[in-house]
């Protein structure tokens, strides 16, 4: 049950929205899509859903192209609202669940459980437009998950939610992942991706500029920070090969280096000069990687 995207390119006229994108999401995996606004995330999702056809490449789910026959197994949360403002919560969820091939009676039973879980059972007979943005988002998540899809696509699921609700939704998503569903989601919140995803891609202007598991990406980023605290001046160390930049701190400096070897050499050199109080190799955060990669592309 894996989702496979192979060399997919999507052009609108002269504009290339997605350029040669390839990735594989294994069954039961959670895949993160990072990218600035307009990077091509939503276009990619629309292609996965079959709303748009790629100009080149192919997208398969279990080795078969995605079609309307597959749609009962897919859950989709569009970027915003995604609900009828004037329909009541229950009617709406029943309608969307039925469309995804669920039996009305089954759906009715499940809805209660979900609303309780998200602590909003009182909204069952309220119109969606009467709900706050956060509560609407909860209803929308229910709509995407209700029919127990095998492949779930979430476009910015956490936007507009307070931290308590974010935790609640994260837990729901993790639970459904643990029950075997494959999940692809996009975000521009690095911490969510870092926390939830085994694998991810960073997309910029339609190009996949980084992809892989978190560990691989961090390793191959080739830049890590080395923090040294000492009682003496560390100026001499700045000239070592492999050191990209130095940021002085109160009692030492933070060096950005290109490899583990450089970090080791830094330590050796520092120890030669005198006692070192602290030496730490800091892994780059996703934030660093994103800014470095996307920022460079923009430059």
């Amino acid at each position, binding site marked *: 049950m894996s989702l496979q995207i192979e060399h997919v390119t*999507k052009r*609108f*006229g002269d504009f290339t929205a997605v350029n040669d994108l390839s990735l594989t999401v294994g069954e039961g995996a959670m895949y993160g899509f990072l990218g600035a606004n307009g990077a091509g995330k939503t276009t990619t999702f*629309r292609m996965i*859903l*079959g*709303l*748009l*056809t790629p*100009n080149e490449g192919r997208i398969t789910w279990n080795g078969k192209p995605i079609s*309307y026959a597959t*749609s*009962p197994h*897919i859950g*989709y949360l*569009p*970027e*915003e*609202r*995604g*609900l*009828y*403002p*004037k*329909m009541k919560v229950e*009617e709406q969820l029943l*309608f*969307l669940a*039925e*469309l*995804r*091939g669920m039996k009305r009676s089954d759906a009715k039973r499940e809805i209660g459980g979900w609303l309780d879980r998200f602590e909003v059972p009182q909204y069952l007979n309220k119109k969606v437009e009467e709900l706050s943005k956060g509560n609407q988002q909860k209803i929308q998540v229910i*709509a995407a998950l209700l029919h127990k899809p095998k492949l779930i696509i979430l476009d910015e699921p956490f936007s507009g939610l307070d931290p308590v609700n974010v935790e609640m939704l994260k837990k729901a998503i993790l639970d459904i992942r643990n029950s075997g569903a494959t999940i692809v989601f996009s975000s521009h919140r690095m911490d969510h991706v870092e926390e939830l995803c085994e694998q991810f891609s960073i997309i910029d202007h339609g190009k996949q500029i980084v992809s892989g598991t978190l560990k691989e990406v961090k390793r191959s980023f080739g830049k890590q920070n080395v923090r040294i605290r000492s009682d003496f001046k560390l100026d001499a160390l700045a000239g070592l090969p492999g050191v990209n930049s130095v940021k002085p701190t109160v009692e030492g400096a933070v060096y950005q280096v290109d490899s583990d070897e450089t970090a080791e050499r830094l330590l050796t050199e520092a120890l030669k000069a005198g006692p070192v109080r602290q030496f730490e190799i800091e892994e780059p955060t996703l934030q660093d990687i994103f800014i470095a990669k996307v920022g460079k592309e923009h430059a």
Partner: protein
Amino acid sequence: MREFWIIFKQAFMTKARTKSFVITTVLVVAGIFLLSNLPRILDSIDGIGGDEPTTLKVIDASGQLGDPLTAVLQANESDITVEPTEESEKDLEKQVRSEDIDSFLTLYLDETNTIQAKYTTLSSIETSLPETLRNALQTVQAGVKADELSLSSEQVDSLFTQVNFEKNNISASAKSEDELNQARILVYILMFVIYFAVILYSGMIATEVATEKSSRVMEILISSVSPVKHMFAKVLGIGTLGIVQIVLYGIAGFIAFKTSPSEATEGIGSFFNFTDINPMTLVYAVVFFLLGYFLYATLAALLGSLVSRTEDVQQMIMPMTLMIVAAFILAASGLGNPELVYLKYASFFPFFTPLVMFLRVGMLDLPMWEPLLAIAIMLVTIFVLGWFGARVYRGGVLMYGPSRSLKDIKKAIQLGKE
């Protein structure tokens, strides 16, 4: 097909359950009953309003006009009582000014034995009383003149013998005058129904599609069901809603006119006496309503799929609305003379056909091929529009941004293909 019915049901039920739909339906049904009982209601109001026996003070200078006037008024079953008075004109004028009396009449015969009458009143809108008096005086005058010429009453009668005038239209397509008058009213009513239904429901569809688009529900919908299916389910769902509503009105109207008192059918009801109507007119009304609806609804869905915000819907469907209005104006212009040449041409233009061809087929005896050809043209247009609409729709529903012009159709087709 399952998804088709789910969307059909959703389009129908959510609209049918809205307050505005229920209220409109109830109000119109109430209006139909009110209208059908209008004569009875008016009769009961009459007691309060006017028509009480009126007493009119008359200054009769000649002294020989008062009695004949009373006699004529009585013969006409008028409820005006003439009260001869000796009071002076000035006194009476004062009484009128102070509103003690409504009016008075001054009469005298001039040197040629012609009645000179003056009706004095404060009211400027009263027309029926002076008119009744004038007619009565005319009769009195005739009597005076007849006396002068020493004519017997038979001779007078023979002078006023009515001409026998009969209209005999031998044009192949014309209907008899009676038929035509009845047809005119029926056609007029049905034209209104078709016009409003088409404007109302196609507007509803465009708004509905735009709402789904702006709320992004559309993306969920069309990832479960093809845009084409979605579009036609929507058009059919709301169309069925319209038919249900109109059938309700029809039943209400039928019951209302059947149950309204017989005297009422002699009043306004006699307008609605459709006994001589060709049942084919009703069949054509249904056919043209359905075709007109589907034509405009498909167009509306197409246009609705191009806008991203419900606020832009009205602007987008404006050309379509203007087309319906034009059709209505054309058809209305033909109510008086359905044989106008331009109507013949207009009735074959699919967007005008539902109203204009219906007018012609309802009021003229057209050769069978004319309505059939128009229906065929409409069916082809609906088919083409449906096919074209589906292509635009596929892309249109995915298009966001400030799109609000017809140029976007090209963009939408492009996107739909990709």
